[in-house]
């Protein structure tokens, strides 16, 4: 479903952020991308979401070469993804309902159908009673759940989450992780970047570990993760 082949990414005026990355992710997988801050986790997610293009190598999403897509085709590729950001990227000038309905408007779903799906999505993340509330009145964890509702409302086959629990305390983080696992259970591919080992402790998940832009091991299990993640936690570049 997602395939990276010798992908290198360099931003103008900087070193290579990602160096010669190759891996593939199948449909229905739950994959963590770990690494110290500055290791290239966000860049890797941006390459998957086609908000960045690789400097060299190929990125294949559903057998489409992202580098060769016409700019007009990119929006339709992005609609396959549900994107969740560390800073939520919610719109604070409108209520929860209006935030969640945005992807459906973009997809051209009719208002009645959209309203139904928005409520279903809010229900899944436990915010159905906050439909009319403004996002600014929600707690950090609730805001992140709202962002998840917006990401899943258009029923994407892939969820991309960039450190979704990064700013949350552990009980909220566990809530969020439970929601992601629930989506993965029903067949949604989840790709999540994190520098936090907590969310993964109970599960055996696939981990892509980045170290200074290099993939150190594409199929690490949990034991390897702890060794690699914890020391690099204090590292920053």
């Amino acid at each position, binding site marked *: 479903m997602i395939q990276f082949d010798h992908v290198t990414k360099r931003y103008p005026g900087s070193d290579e952020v990602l160096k010669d990355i190759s891996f593939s992710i199948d449909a229905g997988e739950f994959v963590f991308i770990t690494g110290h801050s500055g290791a290239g986790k966000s860049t890797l997610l941006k390459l998957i979401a086609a908000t960045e293009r690789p400097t060299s190598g190929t990125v294949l999403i559903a057998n489409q070469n992202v580098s060769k897509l016409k700019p007009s085709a990119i*929006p339709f590729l992005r609609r396959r993804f549900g*994107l969740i950001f560390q800073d939520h990227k919610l*719109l604070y000038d409108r209520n929860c309902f209006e935030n969640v309905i*945005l992807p459906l408007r973009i997809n051209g779903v009719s208002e009645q159908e959209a309203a139904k799906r928005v409520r279903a999505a809010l229900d899944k993340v436990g915010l159905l009673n906050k439909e009319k509330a403004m996002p600014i009145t929600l707690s950090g964890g609730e805001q992140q759940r709202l962002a998840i509702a917006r*990401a899943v409302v258009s029923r994407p086959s892939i969820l991309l989450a960039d450190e979704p629990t990064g700013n949350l305390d552990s009980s909220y983080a566990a809530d969020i992780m439970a929601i992601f696992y629930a989506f993965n259970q029903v067949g949604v591919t989840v790709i999540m970047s994190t520098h936090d080992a907590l969310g993964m402790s109970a599960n055996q998940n696939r981990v892509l570990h980045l170290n200074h832009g290099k993939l150190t091991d594409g199929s690490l299990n949990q034991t390897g993760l702890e060794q690699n993640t914890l020391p690099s936690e204090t590292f920053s570049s």
Partner: protein
Amino acid sequence: MSNWLNHHLQAIKLVLSRMRSNLLSSFMICLVVGVAMCLPSLFYLGVDNLSKLTDHMQSETEISLFLKLDASTDTIAEIDDLLAKNPAIKQYHLVTKDEAWQQLQAKSKSNQDVSNVIEQLGKNPLPDAFFIQAKSADPETLEALRNTLQSTPGVEQAILNSEWAKRLATLLSIGKKLIFFIAALLAVVLLVIIGNTVHMQIITQKVEIEVSYLIGATNSFIRTPFLYAGVFYGLFGGILAILMITGMIQTFNHSVMEISRLYSSDFSLALFNADLYLTVIGSAAIIGWIGSYFAVTRAINAIKID
């Protein structure tokens, strides 16, 4: 199809609600558009009404054909025959010297001085005269006809009194050209004003646009609401312009009709001018569309997703 319709309906709804939430500033922009559309329209109406008035006068222009004082009844009959055969003449009538004399006496009865003078004259000084209406109102054709008639034997003088109307018509045609340039300049001003307004809106909605791009919005999804915003500024501005114009015509009409009455005419300014109104609204909407199109294209290229 329903998808497309839905997309546009949503955009229109969004734009109208945005305009409603910024009612005062939206109204101000529409007012600017309205005033800018009003100026060339009023100028046009002035020139248009004047030229209608002069057309009216030109078409009524008669050629007065005064015969020699000693013209015999035979000469009169000859000329009558000639006029009847001339294809450029619509109608004509003869006023004999006796008829003219009686008319003059009848008219001067109310004025003591004039009737005294007439009585002193003793005998009729007036010539026989034909009053001719030509088929064409064109000044040059009239002039040619006058020259032909002038050269007819037995004719003392052929007088064409449309000279001043001709001059006025030339002045009005200059006025019409002037309107075109004023309208063009104001159109440029409107393009800039609407473009800038839409640009400011885009800046205030930058976050929304960025997020929308991230979750798969196409350029047209982003662009459409702003295009509608531009069109609506034009539309509402155009409607305001028409209201202002109608109001002003209404005010003017009182004075115009009073003057018309003094000249025993029923001339008044037309309150409803469908062509002008459609042009005002249509061009305002088109200018709005173009202005916002440039603004939104510039802004879309400037917004980088990260």
